[in-house]
């Protein structure tokens, strides 16, 4: 009984004690509103971007999950670049079993002409079973009243086709707008009112605007006229991305042959979509089907099988590249915020050592004094979390605007609960973790300081009189404790970096670079401050005092130097990395962008096309043969690319000489002599450097190909750098001359720039005379891409500004704290006769030197680190931005001086009488 009573008393005592320290912590925060405000703002600025980005990622995940089946349009999709054989179909039927619904689709690019305009479009030829998931929404309801489906109401040939011919999916969701069952609205069936000879066609709004045609009007594609049966607002997989290379049109699959566009060499994708019955696991079925198909084709099948989850993963990867970069920037902002808060807290603790010692003399245990500080940190961390979540609510809605044109129109952002939990973790225990090294000051504090005084400037509480040895031993002890207690903060930073980059290797390297930079900065700072001593002998008194201050306050000068340098480093790093990316995506200078890019030129069309262009005062340039084929093995091992391109078919070409947009960076040029088929020597191969890197290929490696059924072997002799944004015909793989001479092939070519007013006329003439050739308007595409890259750049800048903002808050906090700490000395100087201008000069020299030297070394290191990071993460896209580097050196020096003067201004204006009160 006694024991129970004692336990109860102990618990009650503990609760009372916690209440006491909580109350004390709250009082302390209220009593130090300036510090608390800076701390909270500092932390929340860093956290806000991170939470907003996390919520954005979460919104993307949600969007993809909600549209999981619509994204693929099926549970399972089987795709190939050739028509499916009977054997293929039999395998699919066998594996997937009875009860599946199927829909067939053929996609390719072609030119579509209206009355006045023509445009490259992505043709999606579908049967009446399409879509299996999702629905079509038309521009206005009146259009839905069109009679006639896309295909005639006949059963599709081939096994597995089901009898339901009308468009079904989504009808429940959008009964008013979707194509109604039985309304015979598919454009493949001849339009019944008046123009019975014209099959129907659905256009997306973009295609309708580009061609200047509307519902009921006639358009031409290949050899066939179509009637526009409806203009689409959305279609089954429009929830993926708003950006498409060419606008989409839907036609009936049964009219495909009549267009005459499916001849040899046309780049056509054939697909069969399957909707599985009941609770069959699509992922498992897809894997099973893949295994069966692999068995038939000896490991390298020309058919790919995708489940809806695979499609989701691909899209996730697309967004992942972009948000990965933004995430690393967000971590930088958090790291900066961490530095700022730790620095502020260090100053705060040093200023409150006396009070801590008083508590100790009154009976508080060391652990209880730490608890008091932890409670303060947690309360401020909580406030920072709340503020950062509120800030993120403001930032998050900006993302869809920032990425307009890239993300789907119906994309909605929502705050992620996990983001708020993460923010709470980073804000509450996170701020304790970041400030742990600062607690070292408490561990070395002895209450005897109340009898002897505290050295607050260096952050060291002297337990014993200030002899050199004892001070050094305390500093040493404090340093060891600080270093050890810094481990959790570093560990947290490392985990965040690994998590955000999604790779143990990349996250670790990212982290290691930062850690190494900190160590280097500390070494440089130590050397700089030691060097300052040599210049203290100057006869100019105020400069001497300033330099002596730097040297004598070694610990705080070092901390100031390292923190400013780290802030400057991080502020420079992001823009330096950005430079390279931006330069790469910008329009290349010195390279002439062609006016049109021609695709699918048949060999026999080369000559008449050349004559046609000649008659129009133009020339056909860069005509490059293109043959599709498969890579079958690399260095004797079967090629099975699962991770990078996830495809097996590639385009191959031959060249007389390299284009201006490409340069050999490794190896020798391809042999100019045509390759001899009878020779035992393998043909020579040139690879694009990024392609080679992703497939881990190098010079000397052997590769075998299946080109139109003929096995070919070759050896890599060089790696090329290609400027893809030149818009010239370029290829990942080039073969030695002569290799493709006898292979059935098509050509790619370009036409130089021409006056704007002649463009559409020429394009329409081209389509009329060569209906199978696809014409890409390079100017329009470049503008479209530049628009998107501008948006991406803006989004990247947006996050970089957030990091810079966090850096500036840190810088201001540091300098403000440092000058406040020196107020006693400044007042003393005034008492001793120094004027305002003298004091100002001291502050200017001291912080000007720290800011300038830290900024210079930070910029130099940021150049090296940004080069390394660009090489590691962004395929070596790096260029040196002198302007920003110089500007940041000037800005950091200027901000250091101005902030110091602003912060010191209050002290300078103070009457020296405050010296008497500052006990």
């Amino acid at each position, binding site marked *: 009984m006694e024991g129970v009573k004692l336990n109860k008393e102990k618990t009650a*005592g503990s609760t009372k004690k916690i209440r006491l320290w909580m109350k004390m912590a709250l009082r*302390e925060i209220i*009593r130090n509103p300036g510090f608390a405000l800076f701390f909270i703002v500092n932390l929340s600025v860093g956290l806000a971007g991170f939470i907003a980005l996390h919520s954005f990622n979460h919104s993307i995940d949600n969007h993809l999950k909600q549209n999981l089946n619509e994204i693929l349009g099926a549970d399972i999709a089987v795709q190939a670049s050739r028509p499916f054989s009977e054997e293929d179909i039999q395998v699919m039927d066998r594996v997937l079993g009875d009860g599946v619904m199927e829909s067939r689709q053929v996609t390719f690019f072609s030119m579509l002409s209206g009355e006045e305009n023509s445009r490259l479009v992505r043709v999606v030829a579908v049967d009446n079973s399409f879509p299996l998931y999702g629905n079509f929404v038309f521009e206005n309801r009146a259009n839905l009243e069109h009679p006639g489906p896309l295909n005639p109401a006949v059963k599709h040939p081939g096994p597995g086709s089901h009898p339901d011919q009308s468009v079904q999916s989504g009808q429940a969701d959008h009964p008013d707008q979707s194509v109604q069952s039985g309304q015979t609205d598919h454009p493949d069936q001849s339009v019944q009112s008046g123009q019975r000879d014209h099959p129907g066609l659905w256009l997306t709004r973009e295609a309708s605007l580009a061609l200047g045609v509307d519902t009921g009007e006639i358009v031409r594609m290949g050899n066939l006229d179509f009637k526009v049966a409806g203009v689409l607002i959305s279609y089954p997989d429009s929830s993926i991305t708003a950006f498409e290379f060419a606008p989409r049109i839907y036609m009936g699959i049964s009219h495909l042959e009549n267009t005459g566009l499916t001849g040899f060499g046309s780049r056509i994708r054939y697909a069969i979509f399957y909707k599985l019955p009941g609770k069959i696991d699509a992922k498992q079925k897809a894997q099973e089907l893949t295994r069966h198909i692999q068995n038939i084709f000896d490991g390298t099948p020309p058919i790919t099988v995708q489940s809806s989850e695979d499609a989701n993963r691909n899209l996730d990867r697309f967004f992942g590249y972009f948000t990965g970069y933004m995430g690393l920037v967000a971590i930088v902002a958090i790291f900066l915020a961490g530095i700022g808060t730790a620095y502020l807290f260090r100053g705060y603790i040093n200023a409150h050592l006396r009070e801590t010692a008083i508590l100790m003399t009154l*009976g508080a245990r060391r652990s209880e004094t730490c608890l008091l500080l932890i409670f303060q940190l947690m309360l401020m961390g909580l406030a920072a979390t709340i503020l950062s979540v509120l800030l993120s609510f403001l930032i998050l809605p900006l993302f869809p605007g920032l990425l307009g044109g890239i993300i789907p129109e119906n994309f909605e952002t929502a705050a992620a609960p996990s983001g708020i939990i993460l923010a709470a973790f980073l804000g509450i225990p996170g701020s304790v973790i970041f400030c742990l090294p600062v607690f070292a000051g408490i561990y070395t504090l002895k209450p005897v300081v*109340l*009898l002897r005084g505290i050295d607050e400037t260096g952050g060291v509480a002297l*337990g014993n009189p200030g002899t050199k*040895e004892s001070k050094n031993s305390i500093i040493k002890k404090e340093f060891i404790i600080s270093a050890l207690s810094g481990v959790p903060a570093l560990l947290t930073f490392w985990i965040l970096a690994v998590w955000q980059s999604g790779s143990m290797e990349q996250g670790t390297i990212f982290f290691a670079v930062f850690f190494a930079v900190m160590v280097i900065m500390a070494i440089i700072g130590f050397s700089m401050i030691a060097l300052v001593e040599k210049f203290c002998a100057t006869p100019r008194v105020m400069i001497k005092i300033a330099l002596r201050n730097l040297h004598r306050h070694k610990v705080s000068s070092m901390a100031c130097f390292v923190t400013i340098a780290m802030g400057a480093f991080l502020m420079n790093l992001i823009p330096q990395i950005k430079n390279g990316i931006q330069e790469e995506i910008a329009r290349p200078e010195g390279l002439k962008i062609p006016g049109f890019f021609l695709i699918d030129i048949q060999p026999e069309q080369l000559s008449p096309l050349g004559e046609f262009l000649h008659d129009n005062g133009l020339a056909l340039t860069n005509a490059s043969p293109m043959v599709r084929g498969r890579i079958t093995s690399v260095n004797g091992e079967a090629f099975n690319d699962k991770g990078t391109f996830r495809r097996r078919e590639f385009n191959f070409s031959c060249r007389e000489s390299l284009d201006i947009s490409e340069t050999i960076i490794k190896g020798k040029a391809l042999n100019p002599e045509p390759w001899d088929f009878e020779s035992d020597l393998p043909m020579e191969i040139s690879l694009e450097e990024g392609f080679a890197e992703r497939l881990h290929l190098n010079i000397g490696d052997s590769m075998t190909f299946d080109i139109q059924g003929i096995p070919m072997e070759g050896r890599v002799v060089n790696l090329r750098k290609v400027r893809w944004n030149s818009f010239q015909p370029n290829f990942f793989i080039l073969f030695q001359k002569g290799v493709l001479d006898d292979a059935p092939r098509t050509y790619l070519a370009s036409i130089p720039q021409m006056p704007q007013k002649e463009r559409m006329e020429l394009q329409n003439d081209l389509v009329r005379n060569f209906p199978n050739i696809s014409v890409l308007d390079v100017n329009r595409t470049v503008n479209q891409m530049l628009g998107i890259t501008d948006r991406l750049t803006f989004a990247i800048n947006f996050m970089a500004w957030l990091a810079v903002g966090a850096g500036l808050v840190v810088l201001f906090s540091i300098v403000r704290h440092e000058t406040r700490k020196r107020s006693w000395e400044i007042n003393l100087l005034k008492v001793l006769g120094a004027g305002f201008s003298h004091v100002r000069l001291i502050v200017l020299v001291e912080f000007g030197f720290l800011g300038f030297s830290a900024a210079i070394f930070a910029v130099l290191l940021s150049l090296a680190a940004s080069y390394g990071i660009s090489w590691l993460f962004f395929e070596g896209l790096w260029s040196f931005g002198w302007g920003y580097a110089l500007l940041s050196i000037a800005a950091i020096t200027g901000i250091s001086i101005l902030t110091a003067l602003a912060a010191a201004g209050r002290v300078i204006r103070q009457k020296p009488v405050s010296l008497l009160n500052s006990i």
Partner: protein
Amino acid sequence: MTLKNTILKVNGLWKSYPQAGPLPITVLKDVDFEIGKGETVAVTGQSGSGKSTLMALMAGLDSPDRGSVVLDGQDINLMNEDQLARFRASHIGIIFQQFHLMPHLTAQENIMLPMEILTMKYDHLGIVRRARELLGMVGLDDRRDHTPAKLSGGECQRVAIARALAVEPLILLADEPTGNLDNSTGEKVADTLFHLVNSCSMTLIVVTHNMKLASRCQRVIKLEKGRCTWEE
């Protein structure tokens, strides 16, 4: 000399600090004395004689190289840091020359603080009642809601005295309690201190070089170059 009712026993106390040179500087050399319960004792000596070091060792704020400090039968040098903190809280009251009040707490809150730290011994109402009683005893009833910044030096020291007495310690250690005050205020503070100590029959050790203050004590211990001599 052995006293009846000894409350504090200092045995062969040595304390030295390392120096820049090869030899450490010895501040206290074999200091021995005993103090009886309810005694008032002054420790005097010139600057550098080791007064403050002795005070720090008696309060358990620092540890000696050799020797022991036995308070109420317990050798404080054998205690670990946490035990010492709690022992100090309940057994020793300390008054500093610079007052060392918590700046953000009011006069009453400052007095309540040591009692709040010793949660097991007091309840909240008891703490408030005791703090107000002490404020009345030091004549600061009307200043209870003022923070130290709004109090004069003399008032701050009176709050510090009240705080030191709050937990009814066995012994009160005062380090130059009037050192930061003018003569007149210093005398008033000393009057308050001695009045309270006498009324509670509390043991008081005052470290001072103020001979007038020292003369108010029953005994004086004089330190010279780290060694102590007795004076009546």
